[in-house]
């Protein structure tokens, strides 16, 4: 991967967007913002139309057999690309940590091999920008106060570290406010949010309290699933705090006539 220079064009890198099922169906704007952002950074990202889902919702509920054909579809859709970018730490984590379990269960050595080959080329958005493109300042403009929730799978399963906050700190006009107990789970947890709704909400309410204490206008995270939960609580409380995906913020630029830095 080091041999490639996506803007220098020794050989153009073929990059696919795995938009994720939740963004596809519920948050297409986030998908569009990833495209806008990556194009601005010189990456001619493609959207393989055969893609569906990473299979995590099924695996985490215990339906591993049911995830096998979903994994097959995933590998077929993305195998031909040099890199796959996904705006979700959870989906990237699932690819790297769960696909091996699913393919082992399928008892299909070829699928196991193909998915093991693909997994290291799947990047969460901030990893792709910082590690593959080597960019910190993406040229964004966002004149708001922001709190950032790291999300458990980005933080612990994937280990994205401070990549997202570095990207946010480099955004012109953006003030990043410290969120206390930031590394604590928001309580979403996939089907946990419904199976154990009361506990999920109790955990989420503590997260919301910490978010409100920052006084930020916007809560940013790298996973739409967690944001649906936290945002649902914030909206129910009529808090006035908006939730945005990292891509939604990084895609913003100073409007024409606003003058660039």
């Amino acid at each position, binding site marked *: 991967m080091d041999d490639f220079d996506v803007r220098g064009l020794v050989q153009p890198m073929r990059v696919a967007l795995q*938009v994720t*099922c939740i963004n*596809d*169906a*519920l*948050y*297409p*704007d986030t*998908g*569009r913002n990833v*495209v806008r952002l990556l194009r601005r950074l010189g990456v001619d*990202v493609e*959207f393989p*139309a*055969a893609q*569906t*889902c990473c299979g995590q*919702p*099924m*695996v*985490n*509920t*215990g*339906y*591993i057999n*049911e*995830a096998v*054909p979903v994994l*097959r*579809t995933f590998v077929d859709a993305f195998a031909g690309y040099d890199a796959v970018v996904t705006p979700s730490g959870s989906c990237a984590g699932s690819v790297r*940590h*769960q696909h091996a*379990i699913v393919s082992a*269960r399928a008892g299909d050595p070829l699928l196991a091999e193909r998915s093991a080959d693909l997994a290291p080329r799947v990047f969460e958005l901030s990893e792709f920008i910082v590690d593959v493109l080597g960019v910190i300042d993406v040229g964004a403009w966002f004149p708001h106060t922001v709190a950032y929730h790291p999300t*458990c*799978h980005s933080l*612990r*399963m994937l280990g994205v570290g401070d990549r997202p906050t570095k990207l946010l700190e480099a955004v012109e006009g953006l003030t990043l406010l410290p969120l206390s107990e930031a*590394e*604590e*789970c928001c*309580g979403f*947890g*996939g089907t*946990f*949010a419904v*199976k*154990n*709704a*009361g*506990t999920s909400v*109790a*955990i989420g*309410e503590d997260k919301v309290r910490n978010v409100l204490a920052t006084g930020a206008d916007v809560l940013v995270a790298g996973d739409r699933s967690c944001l*649906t939960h936290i*945002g*649902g*609580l914030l*909206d*129910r409380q009529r808090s006035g705090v908006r939730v945005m995906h990292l891509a939604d913020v990084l895609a913003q630029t100073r409007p024409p006539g606003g003058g660039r830095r």
Partner: protein
Amino acid sequence: MTGTFVGMPAFPAAARDALDNAQLRANLDHATSTIRAKRAAVVGELEQWEALRIAGAAIKDDVLLRLDDHLLTLESALQDAGAVVHWARDAAEACRIVAEVARAHEADEVVKVKSMVTQEIGLNEALAAEGIAAWETDLAELIVQLGDDLPSHILVPAIHRNRSEVREIFLREMPDAPPGLTDDPARLAEAARMHLREKFLRAKVAVSGANFAVAETGTLVVVESEGNGRMCLTLPDVLVSVVGIEKVVPSWRDLEVFLQLLPRSSTGERMNPYTSTWSGVTAGDGPQEVHVVLLDNGRTRALADEIGRQALRCIRCSACLNACPVYERVGGHAYGSVYPGPIGAILNPLLRGVGSSDQVDSLPYASTLCGACYEVCPVLIDIPSVLVNLRAQVVDAHRSGLPKAEAVAMKTARATLSSSWRLALAERFTRIGLGAARRFGASAWTRSRDLPEAPQESFRKWWRRTGGRP
């Protein structure tokens, strides 16, 4: 402990009751965040912490691979040192052995060192049925026992109680409690000390567990903070120790690793205050009759689970409980077992068997899979992965019989998500589905959370229309 976990409802129902208890949530929040901060500070001091964790996990894995050999070594070393070794397949056998020892000495009471395993097998209740009183001597266990309560934490079983509640329990249940007792912790400890001292001096038989069993010398190890354990281990004439078969470590050099990992992970201390070790009988010093009950009670079942067996590395430090967002909100009782929290969510199904009850089957789902437990576990137990694997076992155990709504939904999802055109078709109904959910169903979600607005078109549709170039 006179309460019982038997017949507890499944996790979601038990958790609901706990969530309604504001006092409980405040006590838990305060206690877990205090221990978390202490642990983080002392773990942060050690540069080689990660290396220690890897060593701890490796030693335990090696033991588990050749458990039979290590156990035979332990047995013969114990016998050489003058201990009587018993093997117990399950809780009933272990309880019977302990009762027989007590009866042989005509004891109608025993003093107990804090131990998880004797709670696991329900020893106090079994002894009570034989007319033998078992006195808990650990301060927190005493609070639980006097309050006719159940433990809710591995290390701090009365974590759900604050000191004013403790004072009330003492005044109500302790005949020798000083009348002017305040809720000052020092005064409370003093009252407990007076109450217990008499029992230590009177009892002929003591019962303990063990944190570790060193195979090479037949040495049992108990790690505790109060010194009450040491009183039990040294004053009575007869000592019976119930030890899970996974507690064996090959040598003292291996023990060294765990004596560093355990105190920092559990109490947030650099070194443990009281570490007692004994090998069989020493003439003229301490108990003159020593029994060791080596207990299976589901451990070999757990060992047979390729992914789950790592749970047998557990040293019961309880760091995972303190780190867990779910445990922090609902406390230990909701897990319906003496092993609560993340480790309980995997250990109970592994020991008892997936499919054994709805309560057991609900435990692997009692987690958001946030991974905070794995991050703190001193022996690197990948609890989230074990949880996911156990969920798969729960699903498989229920595949025959009537499919639940969830299974039907997952089958539909499999069909939809294995092909993009079927997904595209399904997405046409997103708006209708969300609209319906907002008005009628999905109440588990919508009781406290709003649902997002459905977009006009899916991303897929937008891309097809524009080629991604607006």
